[in-house]
């Protein structure tokens, strides 16, 4: 029998929503300090050029300017994640339009901006490589002189005997797909305030998803020790992966602050967010699929060529996810993937909701559909037939402890068939179709032998109010609320008695941060375990006061009571007071470091590396105006196996938001470059969905009660976006009989695809 929970599984409003609806929540740009200066960055106008000379000259004499820095003022170290190829400011050459060349700090933003125009930089333009072909061509100009062939990283991962399996298949098909560059495009521009103490400590305020990683990477960039840096995280106005890692402006602000002895704030302009932010890695993905006549998926081969941009921040790991994760969606007998990451003279890429997994899902989920149709099979039946199930160990060694993939597929494919509109309208001018696509993703991701858990500190105060500290950020998805719900549930106190504290690396316990859809699953579990320890302390003390065995006590609604004699009770607040303000000197505090029971992948990337694997399926109905090529998504049914929803409204919020970003990626959003120069660096030319563009979205929450996650919960943040683009492409084939292989699917592409056929063109 399932226990009746008091807050878990309930639609409680987000605990920080009150601060946000009143405008009181403070984001980075809402903070300021006495004497604070404003920093601005001079960026390269060239995609590729040698820097001949940088002359701060007249900038320094402009009244109000306090400092100008160039590469000469920066530590010579290169930093970055797997491949240290980033300098704080470019020294020898610039590698993309937006590359950081110099920076100023001044008493106002306007003066800092004016000072930039007074810095004289002499460039010697170099030939640039603007796309994958150019970068891979023999003798192509090198983005980094020490990276021959412009290759940043290459993987070859093989499981089983792929060649033998292809030879034994009834059918083998091969197609190539391509995804585009899109931007997380969170509403709050990224920024930082840096300030030094006299003793050499550095404080950084920044709305970042992974504060402890930020501290570590900043220390590397600045040649410091991590513990000499404190990262404090104010409210974050959205991140979606784009605010996981530090950017160059973080150490730049630190250097400007050091040089002036004053706090320095840098907030990116929206144009800088477009030029120098971190878009999704765009990839070409060739998929070869081997099937049997009955639709059994046997084997798969993928060849991935991915556009890294000029510096390789998180892209190597993103490439690895792209290379592996779709192998675990179906019960393949064998798979092989070759993947290369290619440097180009474009904005460096990084993580965006899906972290590589979304790109390969577009390719595989388009391919499965296409193959099923070629064989005259129902794509939904083919998916159900091959879907992984609970108890499976996948080709990469993932142990599937809970799995609702089949249920997700059934739910959405049934829902999209209900109330369908006719396939045609206006004599065939308007055509409609439906399509389905699936997703598997992770909830946490252990790299090798690294920690992949989370730590929590839970502490009662003398009046019975509770403080919860975690190292995981809330970027708007609701982590604070989930942590508060878990702690309130375990401790039997009202949600209002719980305060989830702001993240501060000096105070909060260690945590890796908000990515890999891991926060509820591992961060929530750490809070749960710490709250359980505090509960034991609380009941032990209450037992002493009530002269009862603690094992006979329970706590609910802020009252501790004797289970067999509920009339005997004592308020939690009274026990806390007695514990903290008397000679009892009880801690009523617990610190838990939780690491999930997973192995991590070995040197060949084999192994069970996530606490839980999550699943989902989307079904969409689209409508196409065949005269204009305009595509409208009418309805989306979106089912996600989240294990157990701690806050169903929060889960639905993730689903609605993920679907919206998925529709945007599929149809509207695209960073367009010409000669290495971004052509649409503004919100007027980079098109996001508005409220008027929204389809109907019907979310389904599938419960599989994961055995490891807190209350059975798994992640949903990233998977909510992943199936939408392939589902749309599949629906378009259903509507038009035409397959689209490249994102975004613009009206031009649709129109040309329709009228490239001679019989249509004659009409």
């Amino acid at each position, binding site marked *: 029998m399932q226990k009746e929970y008091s807050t878990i599984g309930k*639609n409680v*409003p*987000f605990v*920080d*929503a*009150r*601060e*946000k*609806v*009143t*405008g*009181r*929540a*403070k*984001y980075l*740009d*809402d903070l300021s300090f006495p004497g604070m200066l404003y920093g601005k960055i001079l960026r390269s106008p060239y995609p590729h050029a040698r820097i001949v000379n940088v002359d701060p000259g007249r900038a320094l004499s402009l009244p109000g300017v306090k400092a100008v820095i160039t590469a000469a003022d920066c530590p010579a170290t290169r930093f970055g994640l797997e491949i240290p190829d980033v300098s704080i400011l470019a020294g020898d050459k610039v590698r993309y339009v937006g590359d950081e060349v110099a920076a100023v700090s001044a008493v106002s933003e306007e003066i800092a901006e004016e000072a930039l125009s007074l810095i004289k930089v002499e460039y010697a333009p170099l030939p640039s490589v603007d796309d994958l072909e150019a970068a891979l061509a023999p003798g192509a100009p090198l983005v980094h002189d020490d990276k021959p062939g412009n290759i940043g990283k290459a993987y070859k991962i093989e499981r089983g005997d792929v060649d033998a399996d292809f030879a034994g298949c009834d059918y083998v098909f091969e197609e190539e797909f391509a995804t585009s560059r899109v931007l*997380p*495009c*969170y*509403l*709050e*521009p990224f920024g930082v305030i840096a300030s030094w103490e006299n003793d050499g400590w550095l404080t950084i305020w920044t709305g970042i998803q992974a504060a402890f990683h930020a501290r570590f990477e900043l220390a590397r960039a600045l040649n410091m020790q991590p513990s000499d840096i404190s990262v404090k995280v104010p*409210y*974050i*106005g*959205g991140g*979606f992966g784009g605010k996981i890692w530090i950017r160059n402006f973080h150490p730049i602000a630190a250097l400007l602050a050091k040089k002036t002895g004053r706090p320095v704030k840098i907030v990116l*302009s*929206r144009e800088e967010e477009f030029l120098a932010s971190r878009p999704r890695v765009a990839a070409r993905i060739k998929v070869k699929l081997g099937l049997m006549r009955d639709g059994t998926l046997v084997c798969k081969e993928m060849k991935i060529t991915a556009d890294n941009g000029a510096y390789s921040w998180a892209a190597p790991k993103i490439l690895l996810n792209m290379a592996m994760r779709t192998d675990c969606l179906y019960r393949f007998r064998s798979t092989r993937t070759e993947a290369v990451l290619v440097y180009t003279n474009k904005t460096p890429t990084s993580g965006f909701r899906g972290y590589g997994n979304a790109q390969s899902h577009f390719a595989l989920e388009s391919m499965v559909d296409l193959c099923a149709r070629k064989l005259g099979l129902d794509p939904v039946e083919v998916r159900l037939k091959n879907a992984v199930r609970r108890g499976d160990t996948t080709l990469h060694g993932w142990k599937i402890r809970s799995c609702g993939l089949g249920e997700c597929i059934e739910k959405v494919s049934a829902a999209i068939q209900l109330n369908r509109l006719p396939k045609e309208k206006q004599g065939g001018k308007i055509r409609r179709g439906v399509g389905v696509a699936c997703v598997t993703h992770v909830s946490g991701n252990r790299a090798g032998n690294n920690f992949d858990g989370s730590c929590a500190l839970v502490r009662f105060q003398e009046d019975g109010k509770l403080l919860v500290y975690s190292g995981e950020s809330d*970027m*708007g*998805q*609701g982590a604070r609320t989930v942590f508060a719900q878990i702690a309130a549930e375990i401790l039997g106190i009202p949600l209002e008695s719980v305060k989830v504290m702001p993240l501060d690396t000096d105070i909060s316990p260690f945590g890796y941060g908000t990515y890999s859809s891991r926060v509820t699953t591992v961060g929530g579990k750490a809070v749960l375990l710490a709250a359980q320890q505090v509960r034991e302390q609380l009941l032990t003390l209450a037992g002493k006061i009530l002269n009862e065995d603690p094992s006979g006590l329970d706590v609910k609604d802020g009252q501790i009571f004797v289970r067999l004699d509920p009339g005997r009770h004592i308020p939690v607040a009274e026990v806390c007071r007695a514990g903290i303000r008397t000679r009892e000197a009880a801690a009523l505090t617990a610190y838990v470091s939780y690491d999930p029971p997973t192995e991590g992948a070995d040197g060949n990337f084999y192994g069970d590396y996530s606490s839980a694997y999550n699943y989902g399926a989307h079904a969409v109905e689209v409508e196409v105006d065949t005269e204009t090529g305009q595509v409208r998504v009418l309805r989306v049914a979106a089912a996600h196996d989240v294990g157990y929803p701690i806050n169903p*409204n*929060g889960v*639905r*919020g993730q*689903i*609605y*938001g*993920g*679907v*919206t*970003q998925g529709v945007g990626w599929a149809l509207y959003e695209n960073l367009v470059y010409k000669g290495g120069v971004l052509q649409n660096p*503004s*919100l*007027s030319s980079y098109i*996001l*969905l*508005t*409220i*008027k563009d*929204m389809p109907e*979205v019907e979310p389904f929450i599938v419960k599989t009660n994961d055995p490891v996650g807190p209350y059975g919960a798994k992640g949903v943040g990233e998977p909510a976006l992943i199936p939408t683009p392939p589902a749309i492409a599949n629906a378009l084939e259903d509507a038009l009989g035409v397959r689209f292989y490249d994102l975004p699917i613009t009206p031009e592409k649709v129109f040309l695809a329709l009228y490239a056929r001679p019989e249509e063109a004659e009409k």
Partner: protein
Amino acid sequence: MSDTHLLKFVLNGEEVEVMVAPAETLLDVLRKKLLLTGTKKGCAEGECGACTVLLEGKPVNSCLVLAMKAHGKTVMTIEGLSATGELHPIQEAFLEAGAVQCGFCTPGVILSAKALLDREPAPSDEEIKNELAGHLCRCTGYIQFLEAVKRAAVKLGKFNF
């Protein structure tokens, strides 16, 4: 400074006087000079709607309005909606409907919703969408905004505001 002017206006019900430069936007004056940071700067190019305030009761992108344009007029920011500390019914509705995730677009959306409900106490879905079409939100998928505005309409009707 000689090139500044005295801006007098009624801000959230109170008369305010502040010296501003001719090129200063209402957004910058609100945020930097009057320290009302509830109004957010999302793009400074009139595209995202995060900086929406009510000028004479009508929603405007305060990043595109020169501060002096507010001279002698009334301005309401998000801080003015719950000046007493009690949530306004529209704020309650947004909170209850789960229409708030990161919260960065929220103040602007709420003020546009107020302008709509002041004008049309029982708006249709179409009217809500038209009113909120200038607000970008990257978190919610907007669907919760519809519910929030309708919920607010009911609340406002019930309490006879």
